[in-house]
């Protein structure tokens, strides 16, 4: 498995040399959504706390970096981490309210959705941060402003983000922290009875997850040069974030990446294909069909089955 992973990374590093710009763009999105999915995987997959408000962290991260850059000329390379930190603070607030008051299942879902919506509506109504129209970033091509003439740099940044998040999860998975998160997901009361401080570990998972997701906000903003409240805080983005790990295998190391390789090209290509044929929106149907198939036939996501097929052992 290890050499297979190394080989895959080498191939991904070499690919931009041979790929056209459209294929490169699709892979950038594969990596970026793979990264967001991996960040969500910590709290949603491993700890089993279903957050459907992760777009809020993307939005906070992106808006923070953009405002720092536009208002004070602070480089997004620093703004990225300030944004991540603020996202982590929001994550801690949501986590505290949810976990301290024992909101589980649907109620936790509603709490996270509500917070993301509050953020979206608040940002839409504050003109200082662009209001409903959002913010635009002027393209300068200056690497210090997180902007690059060569599109392949975004490819490598997105790849680095995805690999870094996967490294973090690989590290967590092997340690007590990761094992405790799996216990909390399987049976919280049983974990508590065995000495697991479930509140503390759920909080930690939420903070790490929201910090990483916040970092992704900067990439999102400076890759697209624009920030719109509906796009960055909206429920559709939150859903995009959780779909990939669920399809690929929530609570597994490679599930979010696998899910992103399955869903992102499908989404983009079908959008293009149906869009050209004048059937706008039909790509969502293709998406939906795949989702239903996964839920029906691979209820634990694709990764555990793929692994059993190749390795023959259980995760």
């Amino acid at each position: 498995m290890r050499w297979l992973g190394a080989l895959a990374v080498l191939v991904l590093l070499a690919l931009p040399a041979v790929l056209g710009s459209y294929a490169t763009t699709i892979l950038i999105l594969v990596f970026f959504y793979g990264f967001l999915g991996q960040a969500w995987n910590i709290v949603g997959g491993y700890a089993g706390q279903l957050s459907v408000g992760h777009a809020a962290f993307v939005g906070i991260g992106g808006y923070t970096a953009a405002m720092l850059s536009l208002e004070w000329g602070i480089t997004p390379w620093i703004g990225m981490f300030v944004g991540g930190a603020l996202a982590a603070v929001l994550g801690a607030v949501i986590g505290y309210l949810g976990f301290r008051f024992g909101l589980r299942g649907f109620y936790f879902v509603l709490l996270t959705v509500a917070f993301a919506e509050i953020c979206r509506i608040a940002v839409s109504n504050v003109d200082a941060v662009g209001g409903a129209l959002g913010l635009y970033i002027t393209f300068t091509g200056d690497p210090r402003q997180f902007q690059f003439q060569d599109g392949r740099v975004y490819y490598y940044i997105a790849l680095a983000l995805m690999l870094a998040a996967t490294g973090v999860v690989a590290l967590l998975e092997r340690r007590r922290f990761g094992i405790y998160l799996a216990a909390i997901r399987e049976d919280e009361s049983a974990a508590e009875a065995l000495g697991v401080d479930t509140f503390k570990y759920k909080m930690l998972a939420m903070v790490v997850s929201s910090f990483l997701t916040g970092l992704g906000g900067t990439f999102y903003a400076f890759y697209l040069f624009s920030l719109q409240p509906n796009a960055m805080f909206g429920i559709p983005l939150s859903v995009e974030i959780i779909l990939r790990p669920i399809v690929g295998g929530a609570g597994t190391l490679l599930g979010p990446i696998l899910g992103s390789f399955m869903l992102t090209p499908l989404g983009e290509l079908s959008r293009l294909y149906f869009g050209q044929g004048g059937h706008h929106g039909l790509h969502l149907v293709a998406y939906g069909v795949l989702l239903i198939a996964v839920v029906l036939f691979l209820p634990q996501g694709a990764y555990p089955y793929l692994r059993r097929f190749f390795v023959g052992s259980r995760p």
Partner: protein
Amino acid sequence: MTAALLDVTGLSKRFGGLQAISDLALRVGEGEIVALIGPNGAGKTTAFGLISGFLTPDAGAIHFRGRSITGLPPHRVCALGLARTFQIMRPFPRLSVLRNVMIGALGRHADPRAAAARAGAVLEELGLAAKAAEPAGSLTLSERKRLELAKALATEPVLLLLDEVMSGLTDRETERLVGEVRAINARGVAILLIEHVMRAVMSLAQRVVVLDYGERIAEGRPEEVANDPRVIEAYLGDERL
């Protein structure tokens, strides 16, 4: 009586209109085996919930190893050396049997390798070593009962609360589990058990406490309690009725 390891006084808990536990006093000495018996609905499991921190008492005090644990969350109670099993078994179904037991061991051994070694030793002791790699959800009833015990044991408790670990087992399985519980006790682990299987109670317990409608109605050596008219009445009803 030996020095009290667990000392419960004046414990009360009400659920709406139901007084589940009223003014309960209960002591477990170092290394002692005490059985808590009583008809269904007598409040035995509620007492376990209160002692292990899953429920908060309305009144009363719980002291363990000389310090108050009243109102402490379950994970803190466990860290102090008081572990419980659940009547309705709670395995982590999709995790392997070894992982299940490791989760208990990780509290004392933060390094997963050390915790795995400790968990392996517990599985060996309880005859589950052959199942270590299986997902917990695939075990038989008797194996799941022993897994429940193994998880609690892996936390290295000085007091084990066992909630009906014998129920539903065959005679041979019960006999085997009684032997295992006795071996655990021989290492100095005190045990408080809720049990309906009287053969197990009679052969294990040094002292029996009988609950009925949340109140302690009798206490004593197993054979004394078994012949106590109040106990017989609680189980069989008043013959005059």
